[in-house]
């Protein structure tokens, strides 16, 4: 049984078919990338899988359970977390607090204990903060723990979002263009981080434009174009697939593809 099973999901906005009959699956510990030209429907697919949109057709199963259209906070309960392409950090909170929000489900506290400042409430907070520091160390942000999140650089914020997503100890982590807008050094750090996370058993679904990174770390690639799946397979298979090359168009793409095919 796969960890994530996507069967025939579709969604339209107005008259536009953003995603049409897409199916694929992810197994435990795998890194699967979704690629495709701009406007192919990758982020929309992501949003359907993470509870932001509800698929109009098709079904999604997480660890065997039917979760189609389930809202994001319930998916989080089932071990699915994500990062955002355009960043959704809590800019008024500190870096540490941002990550600590990821432990919300673990805290599972009583409102009364919180209102009365009972020791149990304080212990919970302390534990969340200690674990958050550990996560910050993992992503290399421990020195920024007390800073206001809004003051960090773009690359650092991307890592912060990953730390926050990891706090949920997810079975499946959705990364929405984690390397977008990052320079070469930042991209390398993200790549290392992603590989590390996958090694620890978390499955990863990645949307990314950086082809070199995608080719290097993915076990499996799904290619979308105009909302439809046009190919899937290992990096080598996908890169020499005629429809994929056609979708990306242009001499540059064909050249790059040929170069990889020769690797």
């Amino acid at each position: 049984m796969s960890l994530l099973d996507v069967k025939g999901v579709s969604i339209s906005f107005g008259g536009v078919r953003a995603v049409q009959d897409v199916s694929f699956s992810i197994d435990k510990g795998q890194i699967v990338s979704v690629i495709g030209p701009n406007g192919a429907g990758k982020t929309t697919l992501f949003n359907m899988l993470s509870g932001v949109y509800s698929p109009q057709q098709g079904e999604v199963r997480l660890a065997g359970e039917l979760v189609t259209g389930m809202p994001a906070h319930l998916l989080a309960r089932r071990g699915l977390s994500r990062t955002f392409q355009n960043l959704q950090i809590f800019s008024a909170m500190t870096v540490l607090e941002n990550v600590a929000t990821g432990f919300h489900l673990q805290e599972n506290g009583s409102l009364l204990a919180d209102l009365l400042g009972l020791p149990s409430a304080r212990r919970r907070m302390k534990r969340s903060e200690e674990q958050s520091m550990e996560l910050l160390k993992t992503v290399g942000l421990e020195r920024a723990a007390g800073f206001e999140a809004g003051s960090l650089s773009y690359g650092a914020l991307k890592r912060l979002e990953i730390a926050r997503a990891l706090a949920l100890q997810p079975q499946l982590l959705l990364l929405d263009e984690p390397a977008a807008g990052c320079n070469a050094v930042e991209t390398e750090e993200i790549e290392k981080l992603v590989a590390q996370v996958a090694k620890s058993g978390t499955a990863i679904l990645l949307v990314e434009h950086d082809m070199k990174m995608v080719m290097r770390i993915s076990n499996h690639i799904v290619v979308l174009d105009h909302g439809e799946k046009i190919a899937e397979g290992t990096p080598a298979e996908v890169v020499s697939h005629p429809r994929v090359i056609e979708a990306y168009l242009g001499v540059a793409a064909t050249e790059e593809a040929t170069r990889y095919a020769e690797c």
Partner: protein
Amino acid sequence: MSEFMQFLLSGLTVGAVYALVALGFTIIYNASDVANFAQGEFVMLGGMITASAYAAGAPLLLAATLAIVLTAVIGILLNKLAIEPARGAPVASLIIITIGASIFIRGLTQILLDKELHRFPAFSGDDPIHVLGATILPQSLWVIAGALLVFVALWLFFTRTLTGRAVLATANNRIAALLVGINTRYIMALSFALSAAIGALAGILITPITLTSYDIGMTMALKGFAAAMLGGMGNPKGALAGGLVLGLLEALTAGYLSSQYKDAAAFVVILAVLFFMPQGMFGRKVAERV
């Protein structure tokens, strides 16, 4: 049946006023994404300034013109001094600013004029006209006709004149409008002046029937807002429809349920629209992009 007719007529009259207030809301909302809670004060100012000028001896037409012009100026000042400096502020701030402005205007009126009820004579007398078993005041006909005239005039303005189309363009996309050379600051000032003038006119038309005083603004603003929301925020056709429907609902509530709770009709409408039909009768559904 004649009782129902009576409620219908009074509902249309008051509905016409709400439609005008809603139209004022709509124009400013379209131009600046701000729901101007001070809109009701424009209605109050129209009535109060006219009443004061008239009481001071001015002929009615002059008093009314003065009121409209003054209120338009106040509208422009509101934009210049309170809204423009807060450009880009979060919605919460804008709400507070426009409420603050409305309270400020009300307080100023209370000090400069007084807290009494005021009136001036109806435009063509007070002899009720009999129609279909009910009576209607001539002034009510002025109100309804005036409102329809304003709506038609504005429709022509927005669709047939260059300035009008510039306003629509600015409402649609401010940056694009700037880029094609439209003076958006002028357009904003114009929108506020127009809304204020329309509000003032509404106040002038209705005062001979319902009288006016310094504190009618907030209730008027709420009802205008309810009407705008009912019709679909930002849609002028909706403002007209929403205003008339609200007026009818209010009159029917007053007639058949309880006159004490007639104001509640507007609030119930607001809550009902918000919960069941947030886009109103003619509005568009908006989705949030992540």
